[in-house]
């Protein structure tokens, strides 16, 4: 394992230190916690937005803390959802009395820890609502199982719920719009190389020199299928196709596209993929309102990408366009 780190067991603390050192005017670390909050939190009369999860997905989630986005991000150990006490600290720190909204990726650990934190907060009289993001169509959506995972589509929830909260939306309004995003966003990913959790010291899975893993999770969880490596065009067809199947878009529908890199895929490759994604959409008469190409929800140094489509309406477009001042999302 080769990494630019000090102690494998201290990477989260060290990262947070370096993050706050980089952006001291916009974010703060809640002392003694792994919570990054807006410098000006709690913002008076605003619903507080909290998200987070395991570390290793940077810039998620601390890069999306800022005006028009999250009020706080809770960082767990690498790929391990944060504990209830940490989430609870975040909730307390961003509550202005208008209530706090939790954006949770659908993993058992995240759901359990955030739920317990919500219980702690409610016991102290803080109003808490939540949404669980489950955009990954690689996994079957079943009520008998854990259901679909939350991946890069989560960023659209941050952005749009963040804009709603920033413009003064109530806790209920934030919840309604967040659920609308969740209902309209789908993603699918693939990997060509694994990643190594620092404390584990060895890769999460092995792939032969000519293999790719389709539908793997952002924590190195194995995917749904292992195949021979395909061309960018074929990958675009496969990922976009699966997403379109689930999202049921019609001709002239408007969408936002996110082509997300998992960590070590050069931007060049993301753009190559994006070109084909746009071709596929154009062929179906689907209009792309806005495109995001880059690293938004990574998996350490995994090579691979995901494609996310978000179906838009006028309300979502307006909120997507609203000002946002996070270090990883600036508009």
């Amino acid at each position: 394992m080769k990494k630019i780190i000090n102690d494998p067991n201290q990477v989260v603390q060290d990262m947070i230190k370096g993050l706050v050192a980089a952006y001291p005017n916009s974010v703060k670390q809640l002392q003694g916690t792994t919570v990054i909050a807006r410098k000006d939190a709690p913002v008076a009369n605003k619903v507080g937005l909290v998200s987070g999860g395991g570390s290793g997905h940077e810039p998620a989630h601390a890069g999306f803390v800022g005006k028009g986005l999250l009020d706080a991000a809770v960082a767990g150990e690498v790929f391990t959802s944060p504990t209830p006490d940490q989430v609870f600290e975040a909730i307390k720190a961003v509550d202005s009395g208008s209530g706090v909204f939790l954006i949770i990726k659908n993993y058992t650990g995240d759901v359990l820890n955030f739920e317990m934190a919500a219980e702690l907060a409610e016991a102290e009289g803080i109003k808490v609502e939540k949404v669980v993001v489950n955009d990954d169509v690689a996994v079957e959506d079943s009520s008998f199982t854990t259901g679909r995972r939350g991946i890069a589509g989560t960023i659209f929830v941050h952005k749009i719920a963040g804009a709603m909260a920033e413009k003064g939306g109530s806790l209920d309004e934030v919840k309604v719009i967040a659920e609308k995003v969740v209902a309209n966003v789908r993603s699918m990913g693939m990997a060509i190389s694994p990643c190594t959790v620092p404390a584990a010291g060895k890769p999460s899975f092995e792939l032969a020199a000519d293999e790719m893993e389709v539908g793997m999770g952002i924590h190195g969880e194995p995917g749904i299928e292992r195949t021979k490596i395909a061309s960018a065009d074929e990958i675009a067809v496969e990922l976009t196709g699966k997403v379109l199947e689930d999202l049921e878009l019609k001709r002239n529908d408007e969408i936002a596209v996110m082509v997300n890199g998992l960590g070590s895929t050069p931007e060049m490759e993301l753009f190559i993929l994006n070109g084909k994604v746009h071709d596929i959409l154009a062929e179906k008469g689907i209009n792309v309102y806005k495109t995001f190409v880059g690293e938004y929800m990574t998996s350490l140094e995994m090579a691979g990408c995901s494609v996310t489509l978000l179906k838009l309406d006028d309300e979502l477009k307006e909120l997507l366009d609203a000002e946002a001042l996070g270090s990883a999302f600036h508009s």
Partner: protein
Amino acid sequence: MDNLQVEHALDWMAKTNEKIQDNKEYLTTLDQAIGDGDHGINMARGFGEVMKKLNGEAYQHAADVMKDAAMTLMSKVGGAAGPLYGTAFLKLSMTFKGTDVDYATFSKGIEDALNGVKQRGKAEIGEKTLVDVWSAVANALRENEGFDSEVILQSAKSGMEGSKDIKATKGRAAYLGDRSIGHLDPGSVSSFYLFESLAEVINEGA
């Protein structure tokens, strides 16, 4: 052993910690196969902290040992295992509270812990989670009388091994569907260590 005393409880945690530390990599490898590869790291961090906490306190009652273990696991493990183990130990501490931890109390504690975990995780038996181990042990305790290390060891083992050839429908391994079959569930293995340690405590305390 007739009652689970403070020293038994402490010894139980110490032995569990040892096994978890010794098998940290093994648990992580199991979790890499069908999860995300952090279970060993998480449990080792959590039980390491549990030992730090327990070593710094003087206890009057096993319930308090369980309570401190619960709170530490809850705030140091994270992931799915943290809230689940945290809940289990919290339930043990609640059931043990204010009474001698005789066999009936202990048995009820495990039963309550099992139910707490099932409720928290919305999991049932047979979904390839640590519920399978806890329920196997709870069943065995219910059908038995008096602390019996072999009963605990064998039931935990059968619960753990039973997790191998079934399909996961809860937790991260559920994403794999049929591909999860043939792999041991990491949480079931860490729970096995917990009960294996308990069996050793019973043996030594007998």
